[in-house]
């Protein structure tokens, strides 16, 4: 790879990267990449003057010099009846499903990084829960990013047939390297009629890395989806999570927890569309900020015309633990039906002084009291993760990341 | 005063009232009893003009007028009062303000002068004594945050202020303890008069110990299956509604 010295400072030519793998894979994949690439060219790289990117500066990504890397997901669990694996391992029956569904939820319009992911697509992680299947154990998908300066494009497709029940855990990690790496991930989740799907996403990328994630789900009649997004790592993390409640009686619960420290930046966007009547959605995204970190939450609930008896709640409580943090929160409601119950709320504050005092008056030292309260704050989200091993692990990870000085100034 | 003839009404195509006959004259107190689902509350709502019920047959005449032709507010202004089984909460709308608007709407309709704030307040004070309503409730939004008992008292208080000719009390006793029941009943009794009539809709006999009816009608499956004096209520109390249900299993009676 040679650099042309006359050109402006080195940066990745994202538009040209797909040429490296242009001939790889079957026809439909190549066509998929070409279409995504056209979309990416059309969208261009976002900038902070766009409403959707106002509070997130992607300049470090734009300035970085990245090399596409192959995705090598580790997939395990599931149990009897569940088909999991990589695209390269998929039998024809599964391939047909993939061809029909890939990209149909995670529309790249307005999402340049979804387009980028598509333009460089090389591997797909597949989870298929057939009709009526009850997965005996959680499916675990582990993505480990390539070396420094790698550009990773993990792609996951989860298909749950009618009445299927299952839990999927998807994790993102990497090793700390000079220069950092960049992951642009896309996950699509199809929940058929009367399904019960739980999806937990843990982002623990290496410090100094960049993570841009997209999760898009669709829930059919009577289906239930619970998502939990836990963001613990990366220098810059942007997560777009969207759910379409497409059939009556569908419901989704979205939990989020983000811990930021040092000068990290986490930007969470959610978009729930109530397309039909009698659906329910609930979102709780909690932020714990310390040091010089910043966090953004933009959550939108859209109630389409005719989606009567919608029941939607959304909340974003934030805890600021240091003087130099900044939080931008925008809980948003967009409602076009009159017989609905929608609430949203956001709060920003520090630890409750009364509660701190109460604990101290019982002999608990201030730091410990602060930690207890923060743990309790995070606990509301972690307690809802139904996989005990994961919950315990996350609890200790979260505890380990909590700053120690929280209570001493109370 | 009120004459209901062969009244049939349905909701979403399901027939609830299957030919009700009822005659209420001025000065009378009628009790309508019956098991759950017999159509008691439907009858009360249809008299008040609730449009979720479709009247498919029959007639209701009130003071010589075809009641079914009138919108609910006109019926109210003509002197029909329904004490709701579940009084509706109206957040933001002050109870006193609401009542004044209601009273003046009726007075205007009757060609009387509207009451000004002072006269209205005096009337309210006077009526409050009858029903022992906590003055604080006057300043709260209509029924919002009221307890079950407060809501029921508020209904009777409104009745006292609006002074209707025909009052229909829909399960006014439900959710009241014995003391509250007595207060409410006393309130109702004080509003009785020879030019007025009261229809008490109730599941239990206990309210009738305090508001003594002249006639008792038993409703089952949308029809009046028995009518009689107050002793009928006592009989019901003893025998229970299963006795009525057995009767309805036989050939339908159509007389009221």
């Amino acid at each position, binding site marked *: 790879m040679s650099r042309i010295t006359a050109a402006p400072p080195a940066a990745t030519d994202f538009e040209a990267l797909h040429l490296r793998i242009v001939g790889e894979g079957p026809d439909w994949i190549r066509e998929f990449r070409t279409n995504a690439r056209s979309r990416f060219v059309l969208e261009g790289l976002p900038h902070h003057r766009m409403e959707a990117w106002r509070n997130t500066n992607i300049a470090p990504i734009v300035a970085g010099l990245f090399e596409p890397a192959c995705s090598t997901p580790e997939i395990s669990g599931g149990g009897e009846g569940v088909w999991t694996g990589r695209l390269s391992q998929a039998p024809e029956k599964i391939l047909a499903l993939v061809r029909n569904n890939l990209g149909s939820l995670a529309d790249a319009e307005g999402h340049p990084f979804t387009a980028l992911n598509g333009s460089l697509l090389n591997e797909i992680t597949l989870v298929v829960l057939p009709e009526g299947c009850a997965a005996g154990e959680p499916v675990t998908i582990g993505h480990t990013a390539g070396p420094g300066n790698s550009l990773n494009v993990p792609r996951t497709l989860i298909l749950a047939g009618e009445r299927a029940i299952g839990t999927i855990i998807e994790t993102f990690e990497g090793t700390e390297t000079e220069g950092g790496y960049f992951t642009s991930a896309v996950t699509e989740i199809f929940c058929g009629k009367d399904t019960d799907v739980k999806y937990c996403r843990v982002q623990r990328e290496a410090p100094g890395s960049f993570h841009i994630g997209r999760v898009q789900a669709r829930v059919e009649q009577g289906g239930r989806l619970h998502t939990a997004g836990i963001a613990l790592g990366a220098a810059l993390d942007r997560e777009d999570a969207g759910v379409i409640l497409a059939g009556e009686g569908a419901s989704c619960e979205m939990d989020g927890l983000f811990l930021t420290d040092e000068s990290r930046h986490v930007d969470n966007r959610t978009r729930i569309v109530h397309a039909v009547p009698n659906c329910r959605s609930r979102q709780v995204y909690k932020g714990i900020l310390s040091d010089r970190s910043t966090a953004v939450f933009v959550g939108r609930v859209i109630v389409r015309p005719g989606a009567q008896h919608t029941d939607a709640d959304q909340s974003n409580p934030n805890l600021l*633990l240091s003087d130099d943090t900044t939080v*931008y929160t925008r809980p948003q409601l967009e409602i*076009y039906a009159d017989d609905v119950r929608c609430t949203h709320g956001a709060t*920003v504050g520090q630890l409750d002084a009364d509660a701190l005092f109460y604990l101290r008056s019982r002999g608990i030292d201030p730091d410990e009291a602060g930690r207890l309260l923060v743990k309790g704050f995070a606990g509301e989200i972690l307690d809802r993760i139904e996989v005990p091993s994961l919950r315990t692990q996350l609890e200790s990870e979260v505890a380990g990341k909590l700053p120690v000085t929280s209570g001493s100034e109370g | 005063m009120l004459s209901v003839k062969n009244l049939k009404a349905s909701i979403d195509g399901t027939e609830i009232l299957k030919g009700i006959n009822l005659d209420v004259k001025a000065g009378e107190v009628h009790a309508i009893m019956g098991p759950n689902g017999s159509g008691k509350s439907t009858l009360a709502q249809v008299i008040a003009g609730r449009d*979720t019920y479709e009247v498919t047959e029959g007639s209701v005449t009130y003071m010589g007028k075809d009641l079914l032709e009138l919108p609910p*507010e006109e019926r109210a202004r003509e002197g029909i009062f329904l004490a*709701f089984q579940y009084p*509706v909460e109206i957040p933001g*709308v002050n109870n006193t303000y609401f009542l004044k608007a209601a009273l003046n*709407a009726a007075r205007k309709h009757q060609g009387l002068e509207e009451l000004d704030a002072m006269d209205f307040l005096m009337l309210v004070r006077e009526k409050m004594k009858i029903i022992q309503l906590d003055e604080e409730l006057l300043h709260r939004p209509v029924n919002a945050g009221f307890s079950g008992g407060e809501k029921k008292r508020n209904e009777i208080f409104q009745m006292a202020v609006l002074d209707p000719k025909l009052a229909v009390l829909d399960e006014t006793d439900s959710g009241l303890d014995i003391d509250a029941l007595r207060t409410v009943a006393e309130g109702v009794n004080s509003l009785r008069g020879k030019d007025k009539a009261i229809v008490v809709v109730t599941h239990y006999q206990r309210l009738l110990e305090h508001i003594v009816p002249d006639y008792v009608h038993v409703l089952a499956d949308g029809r009046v299956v028995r009518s009689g004096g107050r002793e009928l209520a006592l009989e019901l109390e003893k025998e229970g509604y299963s006795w009525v249900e057995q009767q309805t299993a036989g050939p339908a009676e159509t007389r009221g």
Partner: protein
Amino acid sequence: MSDQIKLERNSEAAEQLANREYKYGFVTDIEADSAPPGLSEEIIRFISAKKEEPEFMLEFRLKAFRHWLTLEEPDWAFVNYPAIDYQQIVYYSAPKAQGDGPQSLDEVDPKLLETYAKLGIPLKEQEILAGVVAVDAVFDSVSVATTFKGKLEELGIVFCSFSEAVKEHPDLIRKYLGSVVPYTDNFFAALNAAVFTDGSFVYIPKGVRCPMELSTYFRINAANTGQFERTLIVADDDAYVSYLEGCTAPQRDENQLHAAVVELIAAENSTIKYSTVQNWYPGDENGVGGIYNFVTKRGKCAGANSKISWTQVETGSSITWKYPGCILQGDNSVGEFYSVALTNNCQQADTGTKMVHIGKNTRSTIISKGISAGRGQNTYRGLVKILKGADGARNYSQCDSMLLGDRCGAHTFPYLDVQNRTATVEHEASTSKIGEDQIFYCQQRGISAEDAVSMIVNGFCKEVFSELPMEFAVEAQKLLGISLEGSVG
């Protein structure tokens, strides 16, 4: 007849237009009654000359204009309208001579008169509102106005038209003009700064409590303040003033675009209360012909313990775009925003507030009530920004929406930006409708369905109305009822 503002604006084209000589060879003619349509430096010089303004005003206008040329019309608001051709607008026309408008109330749209009657507006005022007579023609002859002015003068209060203030109090204007809403603020504020023709000016000296509600209604020479109005209110230390803008009666205007600017400055311990009832023509059932109301209103709590309170009732205009805000600079200063916005038929409103907390222990309260009916779209958009130094800042926001019918929309877009950990920021929102059971209950008590809706809606807005001066509040309630007519099935 009302000119439809023509479509299409393209800033490049505008720039070209502005940079070359005016196509029609327009020469500044100070004797002319009005400028030809379009906007150029020449037109701005013409306006300034017409108004006999001092040099600093011309400079202010020109700077604003040059800046405006670099701006794009904002598109982030939740409103849709055909593009405006800014070169088709006439930016200056002399006050209407008597006889241009309708000659008597007989010539006025009967629908409008019907509304006046419902609001109980006296005949004389109806004539003013319908444009049959000029305001000054009435008020000059009414002794109450003169007495009123004399009383204020005794207290040292300045209350006059903006033009008059530029001549009589140039120092105050020079000091405060653009100090809260600089011409660089936004597209419409820049446009206003370049071309505004008139407005109001208020100055309350130290320690003076203005003894009466000041109102545009009473302002002498209020005629033809035009579509680009500018208001500046300054309350010096320990002063108090309550200012009322607009009136409940529907106002017609042949100018479709309105872009006003209001600036408030509150010094130490002072309070400014600013109440608005906006009822510009909303257009017909299909939204044709309504006013576009793009307003920039902002107050600065410059001194410690100062307070600025905005109350607005927005029922008119086909499009409303306004965010009255407070810059809470002084320690312990307080900002308040109470709003009722109603959209019916095809109206669109994108309104809310901006509370910027800079000083320590600053507090802000936001209460917003949006009512959507017909095909109306109602958006709350509000920013609460807590800067780093604003220790102990507190904000509470409550945004409630009520929807009447299933073809309207209610949207809530709060923006909370917090950079201080000792701050407490809370936002709550809810959505409700009027239940059929509620309407039936009212009907059973003898109240008509229409009155029931009006009663419930007014109850919904109670917290805002209680902030309005008494008479205004009563009128505002009636206004809501009238604005909602026909929206109940």
